[in-house]
């Protein structure tokens, strides 16, 4: 197994740093899949994550000027690593004024992802920061749990409002109850509701727009005003929103009635899918 890659462009480096910061907010520990064309940050819906799952994908050639990898075997040309996402984020944050950043898989008594940063320096000498991030190699038998999730057929798809606004609303609602109802319809309406014994609070977002329907048949019968709803844990939604520091290029919310809510985001060229299950 081999992996080495290099970033020399400042904009690419900043973008990659932002992606890693977002992942660090979304999942404490996650899997990193390295394949010839892509990098994926994966959180599978196990008990530890409370049923939440995440799939983040980026095309390596949009970031790295050099990228070489050799997977476990030729038929299985991928590397799956488990790491503490905050380590990667912290390591990348020190690369603010970097001339170049290199990442490689190393073995320093235990497997590491070594991030080596050459800093710009006023003086002639270069300064090099190296971070050895401990990783665990995920054995092949566990790979099946870390595959790209199938996008479920949703009842309603709606564009999300400005995430910052949504986050501040959800933050306030969180004080009232852990149980949030998220509902939307095909007329571009999205509602966030809290219902307790003492009070009901609903925030209405209107005119959000709906993405074009993938298949005509199923949704044609649906009344545009009819809401599809899911009951979810508000903390999971808050964690998702906390990770979105920058407003995405495109943000869609897909609701499968009473089953799950699926957020499909695009941050420039990085795609993020986040699934929150309904309360069981």
């Amino acid at each position, binding site marked *: 197994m081999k992996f080495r890659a290099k970033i020399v462009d400042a904009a690419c480096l900043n973008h990659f740093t932002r992606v890693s910061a977002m992942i660090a907010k979304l999942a404490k520990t996650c899997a990193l899949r390295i394949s010839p064309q892509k990098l994926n940050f994966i959180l599978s819906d196990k008990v530890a994550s409370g049923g939440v799952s995440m799939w983040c994908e980026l095309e390596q050639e949009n970031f790295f000027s050099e990228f070489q990898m050799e997977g476990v075997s030729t038929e299985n040309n991928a590397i799956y690593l488990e790491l503490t996402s905050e*380590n990667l984020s*912290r390591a990348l944050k020190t690369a603010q004024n970097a001339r170049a950043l290199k990442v490689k898989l190393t073995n320093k008594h235990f497997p590491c992802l070594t991030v080596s940063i050459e800093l710009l320096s006023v*003086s002639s*000498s270069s*300064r090099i920061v190296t*971070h050895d991030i*401990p990783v665990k190699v995920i054995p092949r038998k566990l790979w099946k749990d870390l595959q790209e999730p199938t996008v479920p057929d949703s009842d309603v798809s709606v564009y999300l409002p400005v995430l910052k606004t949504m986050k501040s609303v959800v933050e306030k609602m969180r004080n009232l109850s852990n149980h949030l109802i998220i509902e939307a319809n095909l007329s571009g309406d999205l509602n966030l509701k809290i219902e307790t014994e003492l009070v009901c609070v609903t925030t209405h977002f209107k005119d959000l727009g709906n993405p074009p329907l993938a298949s005509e048949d199923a949704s044609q019968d649906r009344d545009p005003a009819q809401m599809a709803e899911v009951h979810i844990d508000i903390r999971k939604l808050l964690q998702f929103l906390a990770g979105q520091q920058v407003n995405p290029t495109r943000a869609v919310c897909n609701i499968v009635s009473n089953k799950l809510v699926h957020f499909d985001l695009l941050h420039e060229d990085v795609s993020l899918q986040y699934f929150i299950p309904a309360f069981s």
Partner: protein
Amino acid sequence: MKCLVTGGNVKVLGKAVHSLSRIGEELYLEPMEDGLSLRTVNSSRSAYACFLFAPLFFQQYQAAAPGQEALRCKILMKSFLAAFRSLATVEKSVEKCCISLNGRSSRLVVQLHCRYGVRKTHNLSFQDCESLQAIFDPALCSHVLRAPARVLGEAVLPFPPALAEVTLGIGCGRRVILRSYQEEEADSSIRAMVTEMSIGEEDFQQLQAQEGAAITFCLKELRGLLSFAESANLSLSVHFDAPGRPAIFAVKDSLLDGHFVLATMSESDLHSPALCSPEPHRLVPPLQAHSTPHLDDFANDDIDSYMIAMETTVDSEGSRAGPSIPLSPGLRPPCSPGPYSEDNDAEPSTEPGTPPPKKFRSLFFGSILAPAHSPPGPSPVLAEDSEGEG
């Protein structure tokens, strides 16, 4: 004692107190002829810090009333710090700061003369004390490096603020290396990230050390001095020796000098691989110490055996029952460290109020062996108020 600080120097004084507050909980004030000395030591006695402000630093400086002995005192660090709590406010609104102590009053008075005629007076209670002194001599350390504080400040940026220990040393190609030090985890499933910063020799004003020389010390305790030196735009020099011997971090300018003396981990404690290894994955044994066979003696010394009382204060409290231990090292009988090693390990947990057992042994209580056994140069010794000991 009476001294008056004006203008920008008030902030400098405040910043110095802030950096001392990162080390210890008690501040020792000692006005001397050559200036006002502010000192502190941490509870495990593995770090000592001292700032000496020359008389010229002050607009007025009087160490002692004529015909009287200079009074020294120790005060609670946080009480003194309260006067300089917000450096931004100090800079903006304080015009003068007057510190006075007279034998008749039972208070150390810190008076801040601020803008608009506002005067803030802090009356701090103090304790008479013996002089807190660590004997150390940077000139005797075999390795020195010196760089503008900014270089070292930038060097520690990649390390998380919570990081305790760091290893500083000279790596291949005479590059100065700073690496986060991790205790070897018994539970290997939770490993911490290791960060290393490598700086070229050219960034240093002085680098007198050979490849492979390295020490491991507590970075948190140094940060106070680093930030002081950076704000005062001074150079910081690091004097060190073999692992286990204390490292001296010093700043100096015409009006003040500061010394932070920190314990370093000894050979037997170190787990990290050498800084200068060609293949990173090959386990290279830790740096070999210089041939000081009694190095381990320092680590095992029991502080109580080696406490040395310095001059006692000349006042009514002369009748303190301190251990009558002679001052000069030559008179002391050699002590074998063996029987005390267990005591030393137990020591941090038995003293009330001490922090969790630290990896650094009490650095100052080096063995004061008879001249025949003594290590080259005086060993750093800390004198402490024996009366204040719990």
